[in-house]
């Protein structure tokens, strides 16, 4: 932050933070074995009792390599907004890392912007005039590939989480929206994969974009059917 820390002695100017050596192979093996035991996606709706709807997701990365992501989503609203008249509801999405801060603020805001744009297209905003819908994402844990924290890895989970929370809140959506990620690209679909509502490609080649979109679509089908299955099983 802009305010420099003047209370502590920060050491010499060329001081560097300590770095830990990578884990040795043995401990890694046990780790993966333990993770292999619970491979399935865990979904639980309605954990946050004071919200209008919420979802809790535990997923592994869709490439099949294990990095569990724990995400809690809560939806507040539609609630009345003060001030000027709006014929459509206004949507805000906020993202927070609960346990560790791995992403710079700017990147998170970019992520929120992206998600807001997706759900602006999916929620029936015209059905809720003069109101606001607020969505809060809490990332409890995320372990990226090789210790890196990539936004591509958590984006599909975020989208799935918000969709489930919206369903739990009973807010009208046009369709179940979900996403798939492949090769650093995240594509979010609706309407049985016919429509794209979000495209995010931060790195990699553009040549095979069409093929990437197809791969993402496969995962979209998978994610969507998992969500629908869960919702059908747990319907009240």
């Amino acid at each position, binding site marked *: 932050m802009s305010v420099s820390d003047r209370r502590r002695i920060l050491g010499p*100017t*060329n001081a*560097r933070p300590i770095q830990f050596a990578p884990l040795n192979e043995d401990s890694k093996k046990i780790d993966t074995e333990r993770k292999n035991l619970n491979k399935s996606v865990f979904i639980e709706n309605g954990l946050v009792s004071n919200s209008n709807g919420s979802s809790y997701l535990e997923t592994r990365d869709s490439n099949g390599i294990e990095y569990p992501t724990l995400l809690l989503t809560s939806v507040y609203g539609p609630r009345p907004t003060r001030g000027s008249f709006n014929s*459509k509801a*206004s*949507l805000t999405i906020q993202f927070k890392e609960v346990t560790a801060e791995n992403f*710079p*603020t*700017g*990147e998170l*805001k*970019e992520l*929120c*912007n*992206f998600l*807001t*744009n*997706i759900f*602006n*297209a999916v929620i029936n*905003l015209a059905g809720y005039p003069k109101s606001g819908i607020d969505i809060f994402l809490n990332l409890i844990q995320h372990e990226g590939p090789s210790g890196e924290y990539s936004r591509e890895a958590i984006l599909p989970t975020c989208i799935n989480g918000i969709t489930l929370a919206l369903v739990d809140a009973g807010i009208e959506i046009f369709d179940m929206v979900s996403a798939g990620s492949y090769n*650093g690209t995240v594509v979010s*679909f*609706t*309407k049985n994969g*016919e*429509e*794209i*509502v*979000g*495209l*995010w*490609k*931060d*790195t*990699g080649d*553009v040549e095979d*974009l*069409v093929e990437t*979109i197809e791969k993402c679509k496969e995962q979209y089908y998978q994610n969507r059917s998992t969500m629908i299955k869960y919702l059908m099983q747990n319907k009240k």
Partner: protein
Amino acid sequence: MVLSVTEKAYLYESLSAVPPLRPDGRAAHQFRPVELFTDFLPTSNGSSKIVASDGSECIVSVKAKVVDHTVDNEFLVVDVDIAGHRDDSQFVLSIGSILTKVLTQQLEQRGLQLTRKYSFKLFIDVLVLSSYSHPLSLISFAIYAALNSTYLPKLISSDDDLDVAELPLFHDYDLEKLDVRVPLLFTVALVGNNVLIDPASNESDVANNGLVVTWSNGKIGTPIMTIGLNDDNVKGFGSSHIRTTLEMIEKCAPQVVKALDGI
């Protein structure tokens, strides 16, 4: 200007016609005229000012500082200030984040390295005086012009200082041109089945969705992402839109680069 529901419906219909009828008479792949000035701030190493025909204006300053890159390996800082928006608003921060990411990805730190210990760190300050449509593309043009007119002091001391503690020494007045390949960002609006480049503010208001496409090193690069141009007309789009967008950018971008290089 705020459009009424009827005006929006009319505009949407004409923009989604084949071929699209844009209010200012442009073709789908046509940009609005811009005015570009460079090198008007003597206290900065490079500067540019870009004015779009609707009065959107953006000023970019590039300042360089010598830093010890063994301690501080961040070689680029992009700071965005948009008049009328708070510095910590989602809009400003996400534009800053996109620009930082794309510039650090594409520019090479090697070009800024002076000695084995010291290198230049670039501070790119963006000031958007006024903007009516999404300013990302305009900012990227301004950054392109500013970085391509940046001159840095010429090093005259030795470039191997790992063993001898020596501060880099510069020539009194000789400057060297910064040699970088700067990426460009293009925004397109998706309306109906049409793809419109460089959407004006009224076109952005009715667009179904927006896409940002990066152009670097003579080809389409990353990031490519959807971007919200408005809050209440957002809809999904087909993969054919993406194909059309990429084709359009491939056709337009070399001409834009040529025009920007001609300054």
